[in-house]
């Protein structure tokens, strides 16, 4: 990074991550001043902006050092020094992957649903861009306070997307979505504050800096409570069984764009939170929680699949399938093993691709037929062969067919779980049979059988725009399945780091639990104080990076 170049580009590059948030916000502002009836212009702005963000995301991907566990592209600016909140952003392999996923899915979902919304365009397009900014913010924030702000901010555009542009029961679904999440995030807020004060009391430093908060060894009691509060919020978001009932409603009622982003990105916030906060900050509590979390995850895998199997509405079928898929991700996270962790993160991306693609495909036929009942279709492969081919590939990716992306993640997760204990892996395995059951039932209902409904006989196959939307998704579905290495590589350091963190507490569990680790916190205090004149924040591995970038 040539951050020191005091050129125009140099200063932009130094704040590259911030620009990925700022540009969509600016785009939303631009849309705000466009005259009300210029729908195409608004969509055009949204598309161009999201493509710019995608280009920035790809730049990040290619200039990212995949072998480093450090937080790269880090920025550190004073924000609210009074309470120790700073504007800290930075990405490791996991954040990078999810950032790129967000930047990738937003324009795709936008193009895929180009003609599906026709009213209140200004609010719609602006919400899309604000949503993108919020989601990226969640993935790059390195300060808990900042994280929380993005976490809440992102809810609002999603709430609007469901509540304004959704289906007939949109208000119920939107309120349910927001209340569910708020219950969790309110607990998380309290926990964030508690963590802040606890850290302050233990070390004398009042800060929201994650890197600092990660280092303290919390006493057993608070650790348990805070873990529960954080994890509860994330489990709702995942959603882990039995906190999932907001999801089918939200998906069914949301407009296609909302469903794609909800499944593609928003659900990953929960698992991201588990990996970013619940595990590293509360390792002992997380270790104790393993049997519980694994049980809930496995119930989710089986239960989600079985319930998906009997759905009549395609969208709610896919929604319940997400419960099952995310169950696999949670299972992988709580193996605390490198292959399980990287498998889980990869599976988050995989689920984003395949479920995102599924929702887009459902949107295509919904727009043609204005129904999502499986029984309303049948035999579409005859009139829509391209659509059929796409749906087949995506369905099999979701079913975890080897050679496509879904298998790689699932397989790594199962391998890791089995190493921990066969009882953690074997009960989840019927899930892959059930996945075949519900996905093939869907394919059978939509594509195969006689073309016996008059309305279906005149359906047109996908147009160029619709094909162009699907091609990149399919490309990565196949690519990750055949050659997952470039996607696993940046996750390796992250996974290794979390594994190390988790195993460091595993041996002397009881001992560490009972004694407040004064030695460690003292050490830290000294370190932190030494750093203070330079900045009131943390000593991290990425320090050199952002201190170099702090030109001012």
């Amino acid at each position: 990074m040539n951050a020191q170049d005091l050129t125009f580009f140099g200063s932009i590059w130094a704040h590259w991550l911030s620009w990925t948030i700022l540009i969509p916000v600016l785009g939303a502002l631009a849309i705000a001043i466009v005259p009300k009836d210029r729908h195409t212009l608004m969509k055009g702005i949204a598309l161009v902006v999201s493509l710019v963000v995608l280009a920035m995301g790809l730049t990040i991907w290619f200039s990212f050092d995949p072998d480093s566990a450090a937080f790269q592209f880090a920025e550190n600016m004073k924000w609210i020094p009074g309470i120790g909140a700073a504007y800290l952003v930075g990405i490791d392999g996991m954040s990078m992957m999810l950032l790129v996923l967000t930047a990738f899915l937003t324009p795709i979902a936008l193009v895929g649903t180009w003609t599906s919304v026709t009213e209140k365009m200004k609010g719609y397009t602006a919400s899309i861009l604000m949503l993108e900014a919020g989601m990226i913010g969640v993935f790059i924030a390195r300060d808990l306070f900042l994280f929380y702000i993005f976490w809440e901010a992102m809810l609002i555009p999603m709430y609007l997307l469901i509540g304004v542009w959704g289906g007939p029961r949109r208000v119920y679904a939107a309120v349910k979505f927001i209340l569910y999440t708020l219950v969790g995030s309110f607990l998380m807020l309290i926990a964030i504050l508690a963590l802040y004060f606890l850290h302050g009391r233990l070390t004398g430093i009042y800060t929201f800096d994650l890197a600092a908060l990660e280092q303290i060894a919390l006493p057993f009691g608070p650790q348990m409570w805070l873990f529960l509060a954080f994890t509860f919020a994330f489990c709702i978001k995942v959603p882990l069984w039995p906190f999932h009932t907001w999801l089918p409603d939200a998906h069914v009622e949301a407009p296609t764009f909302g469903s794609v982003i909800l499944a593609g990105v928003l659900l990953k916030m929960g698992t991201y939170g588990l990996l970013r906060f619940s595990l590293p900050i509360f390792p002992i509590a997380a270790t104790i929680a393993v049997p519980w979390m694994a049980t809930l995850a496995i119930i989710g895998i089986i239960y989600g699949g079985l319930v998906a199997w009997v759905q009549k509405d395609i969208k709610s079928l896919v929604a319940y399938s997400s419960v099952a898929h995310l169950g696999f991700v949670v299972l992988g996270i709580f193996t605390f093993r490198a292959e399980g962790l990287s498998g889980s993160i990869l599976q988050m991306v995989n689920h984003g691709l395949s479920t995102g693609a599924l929702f887009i495909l459902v949107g295509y036929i919904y727009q043609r037929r204005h129904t999502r009942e499986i029984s309303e279709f049948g035999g579409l492969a005859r009139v829509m062969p391209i659509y059929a081919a796409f749906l087949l590939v995506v369905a099999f990716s979701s079913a975890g067919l080897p050679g496509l992306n879904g298998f790689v993640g699932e397989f790594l997760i199962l391998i890791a779980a089995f190493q921990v204990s066969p009882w953690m892996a074997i009960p989840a395995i019927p899930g892959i049979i059930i996945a075949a059951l519900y996905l093939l039932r869907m394919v059978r209902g939509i594509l195969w059988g006689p073309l016996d409904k008059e309305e279906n006989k005149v359906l047109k196959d996908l147009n160029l725009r619709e094909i162009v939307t699907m091609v990149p998704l399919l490309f990565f579905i196949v690519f990750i399945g055949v050659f997952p290495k470039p996607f696993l590589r940046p996750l390796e350091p992250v996974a290794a780091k979390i594994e190390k963190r988790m195993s460091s507490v595993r041996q002397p569990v009881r001992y560490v639990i009972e004694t407040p680790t004064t030695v460690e916190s003292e050490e830290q205090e000294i370190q932190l104080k030494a750093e203070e004149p330079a900045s009131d924040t943390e000593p991290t591995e990425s320090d050199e990076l952002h201190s170099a970038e702090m030109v001012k």
Partner: protein
Amino acid sequence: MTTALKLVLLFPLIGVVFGLSFGRRLPEKVVGWISSLCIGAAFVSALIAVTGFIGLGADGVGVSVRLFEWISTGPVHIDATLWLDQLSSVMILVVTGVGFLIHVYSIGYMHGDWGFGRFFTYMNLFTFAMLLLVLGDSLAMLFIGWEGVGLCSYLLIGFWFEKDSAADAGRKAFVVNRIGDAAFISGMLGIFALFGTLEIQEILHNSHEILAGGGAAVTIITLLLFVGATGKSAQIPLHIWLPDAMEGPTPVSALIHAATMVTAGVYLVARMGVLFQMAPVTLVVVALVGALTAIVAGFIAIAQHDIKKVLAYSTVSQLGFMFLALGAGAFSVGIFHLMTHAFFKGLLFLGAGSVIHAMADKQDMREMGGLKKHLPITHATMLIAGLALAGIPFFSGFFSKDEILFEAWAGPNGHPLFWALGAIAAVLTGIYIFRLLYLTFWGTSRVPDDVHPHESPYTMTVPLMILAALAALGGFVGLPQVLGGGAWIQEFIGNATGAVSHAVEAVGGHAEEATHGNSGLQVVLMVVSVLLALTGYWIARKWYGRENPYPEVPETAAPGLWKAMRQKFYFDEFYFMVIGRPLQKASEWLYRVFDVKVIDGTVNGAGQVTTTLARWIAGLQVGHVGSYALAMAGGAIILMILLLI
């Protein structure tokens, strides 16, 4: 040689890409021939690779060709590596050779179908996946091929997707296979946990060190792998999908559901032979399941009217024979029968396809009879295949089946009981195949007046003739010593499972050579097995060699048994009652009661309570922003104080 081996995989892949790009645009002939030639080129490459390999010495160790690193994360390292040894040599030659003939045949058979291009794309994809399955050096690679062929099978069974029965059959095949696959995956997880790798050769090499002479672990793992094999190879209790799979076009039945894919389970067991040898319990299970399947499917085959259903159950039964051989510890003999079966059963299906073609898509044998004069080539070739299947000397099936029966008795893990079960199945084989020939080709014609049977075009009959030559003579590569042969093919394959022999010696079992000394018994059993086949023929002749074979003799003699046989011993009905319906009911309950009422009810109930509370609290709201801010600040301060104390 390594290049040739890569080309073996590459050519079918080119065919797939070609089919996807041009399959719908170019004329039938071009698409069909280019797709077929891709497989032909793969066959030539396979020949070059195999001769190159044999050139290194027919008893040499395998050659591995590393393509790229597939997964590498944490302790998991899985390479995409190909492994060519004697076992995979035989497999790739069968797959590409028989595959090529069936592709050419399909050009004639699929003529005029609107999905012509799609058909060939799927067939090429299938060939690719099947080659990956047999060439993969890691269980993960093998599994990719394994599921890949499952996918193609699904697509090809449901090829005429507008027929509900075809679409349902495809789905059933995939789901039933997935049950086996779930067990396969579990087995792989167990292997990885023990060995820390999925590379097959490494596993086999280290098995004695790590498993230290058997134990529960190896028994469980091999049983899981075997459950996987029963799914793919249609053995009891997972055999129910294969007969339904006949909904697919007939070349598909020939290639996938007779010659190649369904034998993948046999291949898997042979490939992992060292592990199976270490688990005697598993081997007994394998032998018993195989023998039982051979008998049950043989009975069902006798009572079917649909010509393809007879052949389908015959396939299930013959696969049972192969597992019987494996269970007896005679791995190379199982593979030998796999090979001859690919010739004669592929031929029988293609012949049946030719008959169906001639009969304007009729498949019911009650409407056939006397077709010999209309379809001379089809008749002659199918007769050869039938003789091979029945085990009449010296057709190919005779050598392999005879050897299976012998090994069942005297093999490393053999037992006279296994032989007895196999003998019953051998008689049944004779009955159903000669019944098929009588009802189709011989006797008087029952063909309806509006059907005018005619011989098929050359693209169809030439492959029939080539396969007939193989079905007739293909067995001589395995001519046993007692007949003056060298049992060349068994020795050849035995080199790949050579590790097996050594392994067995190490655990204290006896190697395959042990069986070779027993020539007296072998001659006796050989004579007996010929008599068994002739008995089958004699019964069929007595029952069906009449002017009017209907109503069939066994039907009047034992109506109860006949009905059970016609209804396939009620497996489907049983599964539906015991698993299918309860599972669906349970899922409905989970959704309608548990999800909607219990969980969501709780949530909505909580919401209701909150709303009521909120109404009450709303009285406190006065509408001044200032007072809210004050309250918020106050709350925050209280919170902080609480936390600080």
